[in-house]
C-alpha cells in the first residue's frame, strides 16, 4: 500500500525527463508549500514565489533515481 500523499512514481519518472505536464503536476502538488515559504516578513512575496517555482523546476530535472 503506497502512501497516497506522495507523488506517484509514474509521474516522477516522467517529470525527471522534463515532461511539462508531469512537472506542472509536481509544482501543483508543492504549491501550498511554496505559498507558505513565499511569506517574507509576514507578507506574501510573489518574487520569492517565482524564484522558488523556478528553482524547483530546475531541481526536478536534476533528480536521478536509477543506479
Amino acid at each position: 500500500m503506497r502512501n497516497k500523499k506522495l507523488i506517484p512514481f509514474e509521474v516522477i519518472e516522467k517529470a525527471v525527463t522534463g515532461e511539462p505536464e508531469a512537472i506542472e503536476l509536481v509544482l501543483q502538488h508543492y504549491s501550498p508549500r511554496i505559498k507558505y515559504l513565499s511569506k517574507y516578513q509576514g507578507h506574501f512575496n510573489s518574487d520569492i514565489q517565482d524564484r522558488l517555482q523556478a528553482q524547483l523546476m530546475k531541481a526536478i530535472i536534476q533528480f536521478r533515481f536509477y543506479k
Partner: protein
Amino acid sequence: MIYSEEYKEHIEYTFAAFCKVVLHKAAMSAYRDFGRKQKREVSLEYIISETPLEPFTTDTYFEQYDKPTVFAVKGKKFVVASKRLADALLKLSEQRRNVLFLYFFFGYTDAQIGKKYGRSRSTANYWKLAALKQLRKEMERLEHEEQEADTF
C-alpha cells in the same frame, strides 16, 4: 526497466524529501537575498528629495548659435554646433571636408573612400591625415584670433 513496488515507494519518498529540501534551501537563499536588497535599497523619492541636484538634465541644442552651420554630404545634412569647428571646416577644400565626413560620420574605411574617388587606400589615408592636420592648424589659428580679440 522494471522496478519493484518497494523500490518505487522508496523513490516516491526520496523525491518528496528531495523537493522539500530544494524548496527549503531556495527559500533560505531567497530570504537572504531579499534581506540584502532591502538593506541597500533606497527609494527614488527619497533620493530626489534629499539630493540638492536635479535628478535629470535636459540637453539643449542649437541654442547658443544664431545660425548653425550645415554641411551637406551625400544627401545627408550635418549640423556643426561648434562655431570654431564649423569655421575651420569651411576653410578646408570641398574634397578634404568630404573625406573627413565620410570617414567619421559614415564610417567608411580608407579603402572605401579610395574606391569612391577611384584612388588607392593609401591616397585616401593621406587625404584624411592631411585634412586633419589642416583642420587642427585652422582651429589653432582661430583660437589665437579669439584670444587676441579678447585681450584688446
